[in-house]
């Protein structure tokens, strides 16, 4: 009897580590890029739960989530790939897999993590559990002994990863449906300097933006045999492009009804494209060079942030009238916006104020703020269930 009591006591002592069981659907992470760490946040409670340190250079960092929403995989700039356990707020695994990288993706089945590398240029694919290397896909040599930088790496249905080669003007599809050795399909001469890309929410189209030419490139993933096609060709032809102080992002692009909204490059406009024809139907003048154009879930509005010198402003576009409905000034250095999955709230990282602000997306009023050290990307676990995020 005493023995039993004693062992119960021991169990009770060990127990505090496993606190009240909880779900992860309200959780997310905020990148604190200068400090090399991430904050684990609770989106419903608007609370900062914990800080996870030691993630290296997180400039331009991005994250994806495991299908069970327990683990975040954070892609650093210095080649670091870190798997964070959101429940314990600890580093579960970490590898430094290259010298210089730019984001990544998780496969449809949740078992593979792919990382896009600048140096050495290519894609490396890891086992999502162990972070052991599964496949190495070096990019094309550029002619100076180096390989092309890889950008716009996205997941697509059929356990495929699709990515663009910035220096050699290619799009590659790596198909892992048959196992660890991918079948790689290469599309060449797609247009000059693809700089970022997106996969549509239905997983059908891969769209890459071109820096070296006006226009975008489209690959129909239902029909890769048809090859790539140029869209929005020469949308600003003849005009002198304006300087771009921060590269626009296409991932997290906005679709509302049959219209898609994309940041123009070198022009202070958000382009409106009709689907499925992919023809431009409007260009909405905005405050500056757009960086992200994100649709509020439901598609009623599109929120846009800007590059220097206009990065203190956010504009809200009405997707019915195709006009700017609101101009907000959250503060200097608005770097990223993340909506709650139902679209009632939006979180903004305001770098130069060292805070993350939470806004009501309907009334467009600030509800509160959390302190964060030079925050950049904000990622909620609901991304786990979206194609191309």
């Amino acid at each position, binding site marked *: 009897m005493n023995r039993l009591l004693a062992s119960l006591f021991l169990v009770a002592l060990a127990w505090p580590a496993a606190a009240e069981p909880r779900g992860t659907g309200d959780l997310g992470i905020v990148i604190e*890029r200068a400090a090399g760490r991430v904050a684990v946040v609770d989106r419903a409670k608007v609370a900062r739960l914990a800080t996870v340190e030691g993630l290296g250079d997180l400039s331009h960092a991005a994250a994806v989530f495991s299908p069970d929403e327990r683990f975040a995989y954070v892609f650093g700039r210095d080649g670091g790939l870190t798997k964070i356990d959101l429940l314990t707020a600890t580093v579960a695994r970490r590898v430094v897999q290259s010298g210089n990288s730019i984001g990544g993706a998780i496969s449809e089945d949740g078992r593979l993590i792919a990382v896009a590398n600048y140096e050495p240029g290519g894609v490396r694919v890891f086992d999502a559990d162990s972070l052991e290397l599964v496949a190495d896909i070096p990019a094309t040599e550029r002619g100076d002994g180096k390989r092309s930088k890889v*950008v716009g790496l996205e997941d697509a249905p059929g356990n495929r990863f699709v990515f663009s080669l910035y220096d050699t003007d290619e799009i590659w599809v790596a198909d892992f449906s048959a196992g660890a050795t991918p079948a790689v399909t290469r599309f060449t001469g797609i247009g000059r300097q693809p700089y970022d890309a997106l996969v549509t929410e239905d997983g059908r189209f891969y769209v890459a933006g071109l820096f*070296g030419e006006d226009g975008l490139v489209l690959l129909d993933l239902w029909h890769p045999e048809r090859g790539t096609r140029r869209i929005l060709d020469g949308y600003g032809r003849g005009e002198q492009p304006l*300087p771009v102080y921060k590269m626009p992002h296409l991932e997290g692009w906005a679709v509302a009804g049959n219209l898609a909204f994309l940041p123009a490059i070198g022009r202070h406009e958000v382009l409106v494209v009709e689907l499925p024809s992919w023809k431009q139907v409007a260009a909405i003048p905005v405050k500056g060079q757009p960086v992200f154009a994100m649709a509020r879930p439901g598609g009623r509005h599109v929120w846009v942030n800007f590059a*220097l010198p206009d990065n203190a402003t956010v504009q809200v576009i009405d997707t019915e009238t195709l006009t700017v409905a609101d101009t907000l000034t959250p503060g200097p*250095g608005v770097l990223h916006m993340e909506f709650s999955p139902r679209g009632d709230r939006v979180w903004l990282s305001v770098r130069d104020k060292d805070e993350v602000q939470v806004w009501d997306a309907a009334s467009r009023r600030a509800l509160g703020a959390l302190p964060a050290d*030079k925050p950049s990307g904000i990622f909620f676990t609901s991304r786990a269930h979206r194609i191309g995020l």
Partner: protein
Amino acid sequence: MLRLSMLLALIALPALAAEPVAEQRLRHLLDHDCGSCHGMTRKGGLGLPLTAEALDGRSDDDLAYVILNGVPGTPMPPWAPLLTPGDVDWIIRELRSRP
């Protein structure tokens, strides 16, 4: 009154010891805004590495020209609309001071 001004002086002290505001602004720009393409540690990204080593052998004039005018046909934008030649000199000295 005297006490108040002493208190104010104490508050102002750390600021005096720190970098002038103009330099703080430039350092911030270099770390974050140049950093978005060149990496916060300047080891390169979409843009080339900007470490002291990487810039060794390039003249100040050449670098100032690139920063003010950009590199046409690449994402390197011209900074002349946002930075004075004096700002650019400070940035080049700062770039050369870090390995």
